[in-house]
């Protein structure tokens, strides 16, 4: 029914609202916040293969059984007002390793707000605030055969500052992010794990060549200690206990390419390798599965 409402509205010419702000056709001219009046729908797939995990000393330790995860992510963005957008996303994951597990992961809902924008030279700074919503399965633990959690269990708060600066055909992007994970007692049934708070820094350079933008990027992440709850009644009764020595840091490198088919349609391909890690037991998928992974992904975005 919701789809019918959206379909009917799109058919009704929702996409040609005259009061919306202009949307540049190339990535190196686009601000961080989606312009007012635009809607973006993204569908993406990420395929991750991890044959090893990182030890507490930062060494690669082969896994007996490789972990493979395929994540389909659907995201929506909407430019509510000048310098303000709302977004939401929800992943669905199929993970195989010791067990096969499928289901929804941690969704996100939030807003982006423009802090600064400059036309020439192009520059844009934005603040992102998001709640991470644990729609998916959060019971179980790595110690419980047959069940792996797909989400962190309680609502987390993520805040980030993004900055991008255009320079001729180049676009420099940086991002500083912090995630605070609320540790409640909610949803506990079979035992639960909760990654610790984390901070990260991303840097990326894109070269805009006509409708194609591509370039390398890197991401450094630092995490505080994991907390976990014992399974079953009479254990820790759901209270999360800190796991000593489980803090760590990691670095991923990769790159992505964007192809603007039209102003409203684009494709994105991306690759990422985990190159440095330390006791990095809990990484994307997310955030709960061991990986010294390589990830390949593809997304399609439609804007109207």
């Amino acid at each position, binding site marked *: *029914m919701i789809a019918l409402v959206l379909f009917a509205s799109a058919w009704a010419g929702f996409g040609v609202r005259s009061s919306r702000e202009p949307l540049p056709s190339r990535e190196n001219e686009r601000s961080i916040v989606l312009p007012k009046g635009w809607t973006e729908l993204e569908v993406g797939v990420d395929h991750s293969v991890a044959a090893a995990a990182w030890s507490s000393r930062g060494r690669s330790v082969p896994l007996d059984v490789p972990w493979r995860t395929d994540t389909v992510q659907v995201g929506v963005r909407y430019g509510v007002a000048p310098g303000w957008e709302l977004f939401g996303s929800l992943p669905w994951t199929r993970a195989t390793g010791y067990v096969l597990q499928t289901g929804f992961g941690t969704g996100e809902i939030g807003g982006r707000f423009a802090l600064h924008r400059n036309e020439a030279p192009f520059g844009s700074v934005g603040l992102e605030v998001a709640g991470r919503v644990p729609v998916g399965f959060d019971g179980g633990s790595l110690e419980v055969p047959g069940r792996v959690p797909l989400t962190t269990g309680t609502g987390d708060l993520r805040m980030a500052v993004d900055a991008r600066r255009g320079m001729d055909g180049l676009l420099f992007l940086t991002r500083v992010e912090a995630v605070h994970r609320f540790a409640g007692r909610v*949803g506990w049934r079979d035992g639960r794990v909760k990654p610790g708070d984390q901070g990260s820094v991303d840097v990326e350079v894109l070269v805009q060549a006509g409708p194609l933008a591509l370039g390398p990027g890197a991401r450094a992440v630092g995490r505080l200690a994991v907390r976990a709850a014992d399974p079953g009644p009479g254990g820790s009764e759901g209270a999360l206990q800190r796991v000593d020595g489980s803090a760590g840091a990691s670095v991923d490198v990769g790159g992505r390419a964007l192809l603007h088919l039209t102003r409203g349609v684009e494709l994105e391909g991306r690759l990422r390798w985990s190159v440095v890690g330390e006791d990095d037991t809990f990484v994307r998928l997310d955030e709960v599965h061991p990986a010294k992974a390589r990830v390949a992904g593809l997304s399609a975005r439609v804007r109207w």
Partner: protein
Amino acid sequence: MVGLVLGVAFAGRYAMDHNHPDLRWHTVETEHFAIHYPESRKRPDHPRWASGKGTADRLAVIADDTWLRLASEVGVFPNERIHIVVLEDTDRLRGFTLTPQDWIVFSGNPGPELARMRGRVDWVEDLLAHELAHVFTLKKAGWLAEAAGSFGVETGVLVEDGANQWGFEVDLSDPSPHWWSEGAAEFWSERIGVNWWTPARDMTLRASVMGGRLLTEDEWGTERFLDDWYDGERAYQQGYAFHRWFAARYGDEAWRRVMDRSSARFRLDWDGVFEEVVGESLATLKDAFEADLAAEVEAQLASVRARGPVEGEELSTWELSWTSQDPWTRDWWAAKGPAEVESKRESTGTLNLYARYSPDGKWFGRQRSGWIEIRALDEGMWTAFAGEVPDYDLTHEQRARDSRMSVWLPSRYSAALDFVPGRDEVVTAGWEGLDRVRLGPRKWQWTQLYRVDLTPGTERVRDHGGRAEVESLEGRHERVRRRMTAIPGTLRAMDPSVSPDGEWVAYTQYRDGSSNVVVSRLDGSERRELTHHTDGSWASGTDWSPDGTQVVFALHTDHQQNLWVADVPSGTASPLMRDRWEELDPWWADDGSIWFAADVDGVYDIFRRAPDGRVHQMTRVTTGACSPSVTPDGNLLYTRFTAFGWKSYGIPRWMLAWDDVTDRFGPPEEVSERVPVASGEVRRHPYRPARSFTGLAASPMIRLDRAFDGRVIPRLGAFLKVRDAVEVNTLTGQFWLGSDAYAQGTWEMHRFWPDVSVYGSHWVGRRTGDDARRMISTGGVTVAFPFTEDVAFDVGLLGFTSRRESDDRYGRVLSSRVLSVGLRAGDAWDLRTSNTQRGAAVRVLLSRGDSAGEQTYAYHRAEWASDVVVDTAWGNGHAWVMNAAIGLTDRPVHAEDALPVGGDHPYALRPAWVQRSIEMPGYAPYAVSGQHAGVGGLAWRFPLARDLDNAIGPVVVNELFAQVGGHLGTVWTGSSAPVLADGVAELRIAAALWDARWDSGIRFAYGAPNELDPGGLRFSVSVGSGF
């Protein structure tokens, strides 16, 4: 579960009359517009035939030209197609725009009010320009994206700890105020040559200045609280006048900059836009504007005073305090506050029109705000003519007779009346169906002419110690209804006048965008049209010549309104006067003279045109005059506009002005008419709902809730609505994503009678206190049969499945199928709550459910829910709030099917399948439930402070009131039947934030302990999140 059935079934109340099965819809398309109009399936000669084709065709000719002119002036060129819907199911004034949806709706027949308030305008041209100006200016000035601009962005917090609840809500919306949006629509439609500052608009503002009733800055911007008489119109005209004043000072470009700055960013205080654009605060600008306005009004008054005002006195049989020359009374009156002054002065009537005597002087009658007041009162009883207050003792007999012979007849607002010569009978116009109770498929809001028998009965009264039989009229409503007889063939008619021989009635009748003059016998036979306009011309205000061969009327055609005369035997009509003034309300006196109102030199006065063509001005008023009539004694009755209403005034014949103004009524100067450029290609086809969807209205929702069990739940979602222009189909959806995920959609189809709704929902999440997730799906269909606006019968079929997570799969806990049959009557909306705002409603529901899960069973249930709000005997804003709900089930049921009782917070967010608790705030929501439930409540609601209209930043506080009361009830299953009792005290604040509701309150409730619930004290706080 039943809650969903109730909720959806209520949608039947909103069935659109314009989707009546008798109407076939068509569309005329131009470059920028799709104009939708109805045509009746009946034959054109059928009395109930209706068509909007003529109006649509006129629109199609001028629409694209109007679009281009406005786009150039405002500086915005929309891509989207604009839908215009012409309504023919109502004779009421309707005209609105939903800018984000590019949707304009208006009634082809606006009735007479608008012309009297605004002066002569071409309804179709004016409506189009005004509403289109809304579309353009709001697109240009809107801060929010258009879809979100429909309802704004809802943000809020709800914290619940099991006993207490705190809610906080702020809905972000475009903060541009009401005065600006309406003033801009008037102003820009003037800039393209359609609208103009008419004498009627000037009269509104002039009287407001004279009466000290200009809206304050706080009142000006808040549409929700423009609830005093004429506040709405004052807001329009103050906004319009301010636009003209501002443009004269800073230029039109300054207004365009105001719109641009408004759209650029959000402001807590929208008025700051003016600081940015012209460097002055709005308060400073408003002060300067009002100073200039006061000076302008003073100059106008000086002109009248120089010649000596001739206004007479307001009709009254006692001395009105504000006119008293007695020093004590004057001081007493001067000490009263503005609110009391307004209330007292408005108590003599705010819309008194058509005051007149029957030819024999026996009856006096006038229109009073939708009622016809009939009295048996000699002229000499009015202070206006007696010259002093009639002596009480001398007039005792007369007053007693007046009391017995007074009657109030229901009529259409601002309808005329005329007495039938030689008989105790009056003819007037009212809404169709006044003469009988009618239950059937919903009817339209059309007018009709009625004859009302005034033949007195007799009444035995005590008289000087004995008993006497005296003449008396039964004035009670049901008796009055029996006296009314509809005149056949007069649907959509107004302005009746009866011929001197008492056999014929002349009237105006609306048909497809035009109003023509018609005569028929009083029984409706021998109906003949005297004019045959189909071009939007508008006839109003008929009266017969003394010899009964002619009818005078006012005709608005070609942007001029003059008096015309129709010759009845030949059936032809010709202009009596051709000049540049607006003439209206003609009255043909026995001496052959015609009295009328006209706006000569910008002020409406009463004039008399002698049979030889000479014209005399008979009044010199300071505000405005209309609706004249001459009494048998030769005195003048007329309506004078004041800051406190349209009042009936009288001037003795010896006091009339008799200024010869014949030369002012010469031929009109060259009128520079706007010549629209006809559209290029126009396409006409049957209405296609699938190709006529209006834009999406989406209200994003951002919430942070804390549930009973301590979970913090962020949620992001939206309410979505899209419909086709004629509302044959309406699709609504709601979804959110958070610690639970929910999607719900409804399709309402108003294509037939009955209305059909199909709905479905899906929810995944944890219920409070439950570790395992659940998955609940519903689907159903409701068929609603609305009989009248307030009575509907419905049948619903609902499917419900609840699954609970267990190990690695969701196992079915319960699935139900419910068939329900219900009847709902009344005009209150919020059944099953203690928060009913007004009115009364009752709902009876019978249902049969089949549930399967842990156990399989079938059950039957009967439910009664009723809410009544009635004013207390002492009135003054005090009211009794009564509610009662009973549900009986024929067997024990699963918890999902049980009847819940408890007090929910108004900001609680529940999926549609969660049936609403029977309101009992002493207990937590859903705290107690059972196979059966019964609760009754009584509360006293009383005001603490009214009409405050005080702004605190962007919040405007209008009213503080309190409510105290309690409930008594029980839920019982088997032998368990605990007594539930609570006491509730609430403080409520009616407020607005950026012109949207921001009602707040605090509620204390004590629930008595019982075996199901420990009870105790609970409180609930709402800041902006409703009562």
